């Protein structure tokens, strides 16, 4: 079982803008990945509504029987979440690194239109250096 199963990036209105499958349990077809993204977006919002105290920013970690889901939401509303083996470490720092790759190779690309699906070659190349096959290579960035 690969350490990392898949990575999703969602824009602030819940649209899936990036999905990468690391070849563990069968790739999700595009419709399903879109549905997963928008469902997660609403779950994330609902979880804030149910908070017993103020200042809740939504689900950060979901623990299921066969996987963990770590989610980072930027203050601008973009969500990055990764599905991995239960108990995998360093996912928070991985998501932070991916967030920085996003600010470099997506937001600084003049040919990227905000909130649209990400098709930036440099983002893929740099991401593949951080997540080789399914192992996380957290080199000091």
């Amino acid at each position: 079982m690969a350490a990392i199963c898949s990575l999703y990036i969602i824009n602030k209105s819940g649209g899936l803008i990036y999905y990468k499958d690391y070849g563990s349990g069968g790739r999700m077809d595009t419709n399903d990945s879109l549905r997963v993204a928008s469902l997660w977006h609403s779950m994330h919002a609902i979880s804030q509504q149910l908070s017993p105290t103020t200042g809740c920013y939504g689900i950060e970690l979901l623990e299921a029987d066969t996987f963990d889901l770590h989610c980072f939401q930027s203050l601008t509303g973009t969500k990055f979440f990764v599905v991995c083996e239960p108990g995998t470490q360093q996912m928070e720092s991985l998501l932070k690194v991916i967030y920085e790759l996003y600010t470099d190779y997506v937001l600084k690309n003049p040919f990227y239109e905000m909130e649209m699906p990400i098709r930036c070659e440099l983002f893929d190349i740099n991401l593949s250096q951080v997540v080789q096959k399914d192992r996380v290579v957290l080199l000091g960035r």
Partner: protein
Amino acid sequence: MAPPGPRSGDAIFASVERVNAELFTLTYGATVRQLLTDLEEVEEVNKQLDQMGYNIGIRLIDEFLAKSNVSRCIDFKETADVIAKVGFKMFLGINATVTNWDADGTCCNIILEDNPLADFVELPDTCQGLYYCNILSGVIRGALEMVSMKTEVTWLRDVLRGDDAYELQVKLLKQVPEEYPYKDDE
């Protein structure tokens, strides 16, 4: 362990890749010249520069948040303060001070100690009325909007128009809370 507090502007500026300010200044000069050729009307150029700044601000804010470890942007006073102090240093390597807050903390002035946009620049008289550095006001407006703060940013003082310093005013118009996006029959 408690999340590390916001990093100082100097610390970030020292850790990021930097370029000679002249490349930045001359590229900005070329941008303004292009606008003056395309648009002719100085007022149009001011608007276009502000719009271009806005387009930059809505992208640049994420880098600011990622690198500055700012964890929450709730209070306008705190946010404007950290963006001015950390943001200008982190991106332009210059110090900015935030002064005369109004009573309810919704309006402040930002004074720039230096301005790399405007080195070697001298406005010919054909450009009266041009706010040469208007891209900066757009950047602040765009960045703040991305953290749910609608603002109005205007120039109070501009060296290129004869003042002794660069000073912006940032006024909070509305804080747009993220409304709960789902009707209750979810």
